[in-house]
């Protein structure tokens, strides 16, 4: 029943916001986010005590077709729920910086999105996963369409929507094909059906799933919607996209692809690993070439997710564990780094890095906090980024040392573009206009402080997350020779 509560809280929040009008909208949104976080922490506590019956729910929806309203909070799902519930209040809090027109609709759509992502992360029914995965598109589409200030937003949102929809339709076909053998959309049944299939069949199904997920992650060459969409979206929308939404795809790889199509991944999935590795290289190169900070972040996100997808697809315990850890870490870092964009953009009205410089002189605290985030992003030990990427590369190494060498460049190249960005933006001497750079407000300090604290805390002591996810990782890999 608690799982339903996790869905109900944001839905209720959305209802309150839509009905309540613009007054107090952001307070309601923040309260919803905090209540959701408390509920997830409660679920974690229950799971730690072994009281699992409260954490699952199963009712028939369309009986003859084997579709049910089925949810279950196992270890990985709790981590993912934590990701949503942690980032939701952070994103709302980050948006306090901005005055959005019609805030009740803006935050209402945000809550709807949180509900759909929460659903995707907790359901154990394949079709329901697809439904939540797709539904998340609608609120974010309208958030970008109505709150973007980009002149070309109509075309960009259309490209984004069609690209993702088109990709996920392949997943639908693959799911239906699995279902045709399984006779039910229950995850366990889908696993059994997938494993009973021949290698070629699994290979095709893997292709279907991977195309869908590769669009959303995104993996080269299906990434072309991403930089323009991140650029056009209002900052809160970009945070939702980069922080949570694309994790539905990597979560899908962990939850469905790896356990259901073991042969499809190992025997026929090499091309996906190669694409992920190319994605890392290409996106890092593009990130190095960017002049604008927001676009740099967009490309860097593709690079990090290439490692994530390759690590998960190596299909061993390290890869999956690293995947779970990296999803959480990347989520927090994305929100924080895009918040840095928001701080700069709100003061300078642009994000061209070569026109900045010397912020450290004016605002040393900001530079210090930003530096901590940059360190997390380049996966320095003792930051959360390190734990995740190390495990991912470790998992990947067991499958293909050569490709790992390529993907491992992400750490080196990441250091190149992140440190260069830091250097260009923060160091040097401040020009006359940069001297006007206003000090951080207490709201901004709190927000950045929380993010930095989380990044460092998870880096020093990742054990609670890892040991939470571990039993589920083991059960997903059970019966596979890894």
């Amino acid at each position, binding site marked *: 029943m608690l799982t339903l509560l996790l869905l109900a809280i944001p839905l209720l929040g959305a209802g309150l916001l839509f009905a309540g009008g613009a007054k107090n909208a952001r307070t309601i949104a923040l309260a919803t986010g905090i209540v959701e976080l408390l509920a997830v922490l409660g679920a974690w506590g229950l799971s730690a005590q072994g009281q699992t019956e409260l954490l699952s729910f199963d009712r028939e929806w369309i009986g003859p077709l084997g579709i049910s309203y089925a949810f279950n909070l196992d270890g990985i799902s709790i981590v993912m729920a934590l990701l949503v519930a942690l980032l939701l209040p952070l994103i709302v809090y980050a948006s306090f910086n901005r005055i959005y027109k019609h805030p009740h609709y803006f935050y209402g759509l945000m809550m709807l999105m949180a509900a759909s992502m929460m659903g995707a992360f907790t359901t154990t029914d394949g079709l329901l996963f697809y*439904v939540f995965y797709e539904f998340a598109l609608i609120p974010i589409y309208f958030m970008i369409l109505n709150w973007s200030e980009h002149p070309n937003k109509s075309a960009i949102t259309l490209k984004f929507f*069609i690209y993702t929809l088109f990709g996920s*339709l392949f997943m639908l076909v693959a799911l239906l094909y699995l*279902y045709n053998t399984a006779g039910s959309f229950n995850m366990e049944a889908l696993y059994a059906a997938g494993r009973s299939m021949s290698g070629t069949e699994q290979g095709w199904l893997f292709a279907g799933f991977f195309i869908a997920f590769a669009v959303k992650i995104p993996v080269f060459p299906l990434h072309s919607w991403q930089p323009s969409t991140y650029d056009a979206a209002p900052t809160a929308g970009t945070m939702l996209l980069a922080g949570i939404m694309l994790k539905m795809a990597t979560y899908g790889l962990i939850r469905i692809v790896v356990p259901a199509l073991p042969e499809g991944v190992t025997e026929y999935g090499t091309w996906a690993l190669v694409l992920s590795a190319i994605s890392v290289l290409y996106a890092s190169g593009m990130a190095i070439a960017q002049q604008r900070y927001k676009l740099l972040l967009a490309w860097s996100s593709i690079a990090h997710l290439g490692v994530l997808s390759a690590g998960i697809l190596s299909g061993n315990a390290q890869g999956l564990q690293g995947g779970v850890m990296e999803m959480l870490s990347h989520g927090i870092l994305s929100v924080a780094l895009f918040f840095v964009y928001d701080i700069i953009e709100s003061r300078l009205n642009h994000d061209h890095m070569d026109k900045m410089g010397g912020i450290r002189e004016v605002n040393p605290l900001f530079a210090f906090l930003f530096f901590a985030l940059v360190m997390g992003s380049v996966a320095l030990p003792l930051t959360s980024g390190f734990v995740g990427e190390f495990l991912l590369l470790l998992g990947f190494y067991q499958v293909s040392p050569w490709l790992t060498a390529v993907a491992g460049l992400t750490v080196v190249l990441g250091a190149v573009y992140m440190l260069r960005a830091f250097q260009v933006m923060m160091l040097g001497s401040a020009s006359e206009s940069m001297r006007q750079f206003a000090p951080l407000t207490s709201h901004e300090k709190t927000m950045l402080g929380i993010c930095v604290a989380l990044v460092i805390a998870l880096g020093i002591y990742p054990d609670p997350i890892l040991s939470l996810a571990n039993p589920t990782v083991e059960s997903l890999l059970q019966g596979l020779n890894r």
Partner: protein
Amino acid sequence: MKELLIISLLGIAVLALDILKMRKMVMPVIVLGLLGLIGVSTADWGRNEVPFAAYGGMLTFDNTALAFTIIFALLGVFWIILAGDYYAASTSKRTDIFALVLFSMCGAVVLSAYTNLVMLFLGVEILSIPVYVLAASNRKNVLSNESGFKYFFLGSLASAVLLFGISLTYGAVGSFDLQSIQQHLEGGYYSPMLLMGTAMMLVGFTFKISVAPFHFWAPDVYQGAPTPITAYMATIVKGAAFAGMYKLFGSALQPLPTAYITAMVLMVALTLIVANLMALVQTNAKRMLAFSGISHAGFMLGFIIAASTTPPVYLMYYTLTYGVASMVAFFVVQQVAAIQADDDSVDAFKGLIKRSPVMAVSMTIALLSMAGIPPLSGFLAKYYVITNMIAHEHMSLVIIMILTSAIGAVYYLKLIAHIFTPIENAGRIMISDSMRRTFIVLSLLTIVLFFAASLLEVI
């Protein structure tokens, strides 16, 4: 039988009310009458009534027929309420039109209950003839006249082909009765004459449901006809044609020869490709919806291909969800066009979110449902087709369905983007309370039908 009596008497009653100058009573009487029809159909549930059994029993009101009748009556109620605003309440034109629609709905009931090819032909004609008149009912408009003429000429040609097919089938089987035809086919053997006859019936039906290559009339007729009539044609007329087709090809003529399956698979593929590509380049909203309607007919034809294992309930679900969504879409087009000198181009939708939030949101929900985005009922409707196609191993068709769905999303989303484009000095579009409530109910229905899909399993 009561169902048929109610709906025909209702049509006559409407005309009588006009003569008696009680025009204000027309709407309430029709709505109550149609609700009564739903009630009677529910009461008859499971009785499998065969009226006039002694005369050959040409109709059977089994659950399938009753369910289709309920769906048509429900869509009819919504149609009457929405169209009530279009035709001024004081004129006799309104009563004429409403009476014609009710007579046409008689044909829809006959088509869902017939068990005899003679009744099939009667049903098709009763359904179509009033619509020929209705399409041309905007007498002073050239396009409306064109629409009526086109529909009449091509429609009668299709009826002729259908009738020819029926007579050839009679020649081959020696009976008009569906059961006798089914018994005749028990061995699965189609004599050449029967093959010819059924092929002609297939052509006649595919014309009525407007799938490629027999779809050419639809865009012109849909665009030219007064918008409420277009809404009626796209929802109830198309649904009735499918109900009739399912009865014949989905049950009586089973097992279908492989050639027919192949032909229908090709038709679906062609329909989906042509209709979606054509819809993509339209600048007129009504015409775009017409092409989108053709593509939906292609999807629905999938149920007939898979009829050997698919119960009719899925076809009903599609009819209902598509009907609900199109009802909203066409009437929003009508309202938007009415306020700007009958401009029903896509550009007329700019800024609708400011001008009429209710219509903008309802239209968005309707279009997203047609595009098949969860959690809207249009998704499950398409989903049912696709599962059936996979179960019947038409994988290439599945791929085409998927690709064209993505194309479909493009034009639906373009219209949605227009709706949400802000414009300067937008005047508000005022709509009546009854219309606003109906739009809200239809939008909610679009969502509720998704979550309550299991309710349909009772049939």
